[in-house]
């Protein structure tokens, strides 16, 4: 059903390379901040403001968005920028791939069979766990300054120390967590 590790790995690696060749290494988690900032600025126009003194020309009342010469504020103000279109296209690409392999089954779409085998048929439990999991994952990603894409894939690919530190920490937590939570397979 899925690509063999050989072909899949070579093609995915080629995508990493093309990303660096043409623009910049792949990265995703920043865009969660950018979308938050866009929503916040839509609700309150004072959130992101023009600032000739900042490197990007934008600043924010939020210290994190104003950081680095207002780089996050600028991405939210000048959307859609490269990063946001990148993740939108990521979703489109995944959608097309799933369509081509026949789509994800209705039961599997509600919750994965591996969860069902362990926790039963109530999807609300899975959804609450995923909401909480998403919050922890993105909080951690922003604290780390990147996620599985930006640190683990792009970082280690560039031999960045931060990428190796991140990968080690992530697996040190993820493996025991998954082993402890999912005692049974599908």
């Amino acid at each position, binding site marked *: 059903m899925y690509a063999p590790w050989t072909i899949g790995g070579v093609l995915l690696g080629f995508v990493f390379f093309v990303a660096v060749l043409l623009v910049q290494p792949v990265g995703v988690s920043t865009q969660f901040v950018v979308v938050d900032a866009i929503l916040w600025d839509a609700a309150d126009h004072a959130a992101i403001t023009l600032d000739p003194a900042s490197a990007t020309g934008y600043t924010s009342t939020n210290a994190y968005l104003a950081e680095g010469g207002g780089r996050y504020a600028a991405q939210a103000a000048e959307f859609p920028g490269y990063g946001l279109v990148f993740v939108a296209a990521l*979703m489109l690409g995944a959608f097309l791939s799933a369509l081509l392999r026949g789509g994800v089954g209705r039961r599997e779409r509600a919750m994965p069979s591996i969860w069902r085998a362990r926790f039963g048929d109530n999807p609300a439990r899975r959804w609450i766990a995923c909401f909480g999991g998403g919050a922890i994952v993105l909080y951690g990603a922003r604290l780390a300054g990147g996620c599985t894409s930006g640190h683990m894939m792009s970082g280690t690919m560039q031999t960045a120390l931060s990428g190796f530190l991140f990968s080690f920490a992530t697996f040190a937590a*993820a493996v025991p967590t998954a082993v402890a939570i999912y005692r049974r397979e599908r």
Partner: protein
Amino acid sequence: MTLVLALLVGGAFGFMLDRVGASDPGEIIGMLRLTHLRLMKTILLAIGVGAVLTFAGLLAGFVDPVHLSVKTAHLGVVLGGLLLGAGFGMAGYCPGTGLAAAATGRIDACFFVVGGLVGAAGYMLTHTLWAGAGVLAPIAGGKVTLGPIAGTSYPALIEAVSGEWLGIAVGVVFIAIAVAIPDTLRPTRAVRPPGRRFEATG
């Protein structure tokens, strides 16, 4: 033009994430439980191939070193990685694969993405606390790579060796690990050959 590239590269990335099974939490959790390592082999091979091509391209001169983007090493990388890992091991999604999975129609992944927006907003509000506590202070040189890379100002851990050749070596090591890793480190009943338990009576 940049946005066209974003569409092409992002689209190819999302397509491949789904193709290799990274948008399937069953595959991710199988990898993290060390029972189904096909995805681990895939990702290690991908990083290896990406590293070899990128550093060979830098040496050959057709990859522009300004396209590299090395992130700062700090204590938050480790703490954040531990937090992300815990959520990753529970949900079976990371930020990129969660978005990909939501696009394939997975409802639980939509909850993951909304939770992610809340988590990112939580970080926006608490960032100054971490910065104030010194957790984000650069360590070991900050934006540091293994070896010096020509055309960049990143400090290197090993000054004496070419960063490009070290990068190719790291890529080759990743590829070798991908080849060497078995399909499973913890065999489950499901992967044992069927009928084996009847051998004693047969």
